[in-house]
């Protein structure tokens, strides 16, 4: 079963959007994690935090006049929602590191069965910098990884990360186009599986020990 990149991203973003509750404070990473905002049900009001200094980030309104003094972490002008707040970077990371963010969604290069995350550096390649990612992963109450299951067929979910870590044992949940994994005290639990894939597909494309429950739930979409 071959899914296009766009189909993969939509499946992942739709599934993660179901994880949030009314009033949650959420920080989304750049790229695929940002797309999660498009699928949050309209009756659930969440508060988006932006590391550059804002709570209550609204949608980008391409029709509205842009205010260069109100931007997101990508430097793009954004709108504010009712209740929005601006603050400086010190306050932003008091919120992030201090456990006031309910959930963060980030991409990954590798995640291992101990909850270790590698998403900032490939040795030998250009390293743009960790920005606020290391603080976010350590500080957020729930760390959700949004990524395609493999890197061109090469497993990204591994026994032990082989590239430099972003944080140790902080990942709580991994959502890919194939399955949902949850980190438990016993190890990585295969929680849901996309019916487009077999259990064998998952096991062959994963290089970590997984706990397989008696009955597999279908990936919620």
């Amino acid at each position: 079963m071959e899914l296009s990149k766009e189909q993969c991203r939509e499946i992942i973003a739709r599934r993660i959007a179901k994880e949030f509750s009314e009033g949650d404070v959420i920080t989304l990473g750049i790229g695929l994690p940002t797309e999660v905002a498009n699928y949050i049900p309209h009756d659930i009001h969440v508060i988006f935090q932006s590391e550059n200094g804002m709570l209550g980030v609204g949608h980008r309104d391409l029709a509205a006049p842009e205010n260069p003094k109100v931007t997101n972490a990508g430097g793009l002008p954004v709108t504010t929602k009712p209740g929005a707040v601006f603050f400086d970077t010190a306050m932003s990371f008091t919120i992030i590191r201090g456990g006031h963010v309910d959930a963060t969604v980030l991409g990954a290069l590798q995640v291992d069965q101990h909850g270790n995350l590698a998403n900032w550096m490939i040795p030998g390649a250009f390293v743009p910098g960790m920005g606020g990612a290391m603080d976010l992963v350590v500080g957020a109450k729930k760390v959700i990884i949004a990524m395609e299951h493999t890197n061109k067929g090469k497993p990204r979910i591994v026994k032990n990360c082989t590239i430099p870590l972003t944080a140790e044992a902080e990942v709580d949940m991994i959502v890919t186009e194939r399955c949902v994994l949850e980190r438990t005290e016993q190890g990585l639990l295969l929680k849901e599986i996309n019916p487009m894939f077999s259990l064998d597909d998952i096991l062959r494309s994963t290089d970590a020990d997984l706990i397989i429950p008696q009955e597999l739930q279908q990936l919620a979409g």
Partner: protein
Amino acid sequence: MKKLISVSEAGKLITPNASVMIGGFLRCGSPYRVIEEIIKNKTGGLTLIANDTSFEEYDRGKLIANKLVKKAIVTHIGTNPETGRQLNAGEIEVELVPMGTLVERIRCGGAGLGGFLTPTGKGTLVEEGKQVIESNGRKYLLEKPLRADFAIIYATKADKFGNAFLDGTTRNFNTVMATAADTVILEPEEISDTPLDPAQITIPGIFVDYIVMQEK
């Protein structure tokens, strides 16, 4: 009253090989007028302390493009390809610091603190060379304070006391940097002849040494 100076006078204050904190998150809340003067004066060998190296053609990113920076202490260089090119060519030194750690190091530098304990970076390359301290059963990295010779700070509006208001998300690193340099230069977009409302001030003027006048 603070010393009001021209942008050209402000540029001349910055000395070669100085450490300079510059506010801004990418282009938002980034001073740029004093930077143009530094470029005109070719003041080089600088240590730049900032959130990021911005873009090649804008604000502090131009300091990199003009090869005036010998070391950058930043969280991100991805938006300025010239920083990466100089890094590969061995022409610049880059110290990458997690954002929460960088801002807190600067806060400590301005707040009279000897450092702080953070869980950020534990078990990663950031831990290298740092003391690990256990407190309440959790392991933390000891991070040291950071100060600079100069800080160049953006403000949306300032009064002649140096009190400054920063709108929207322009606050970012500007507020903490204003506390942590020997000489603080404020670059407001607008200077008010009357004092600003005390309840609406983002940066107290006592931190500010010089206010850069508006263009004629």
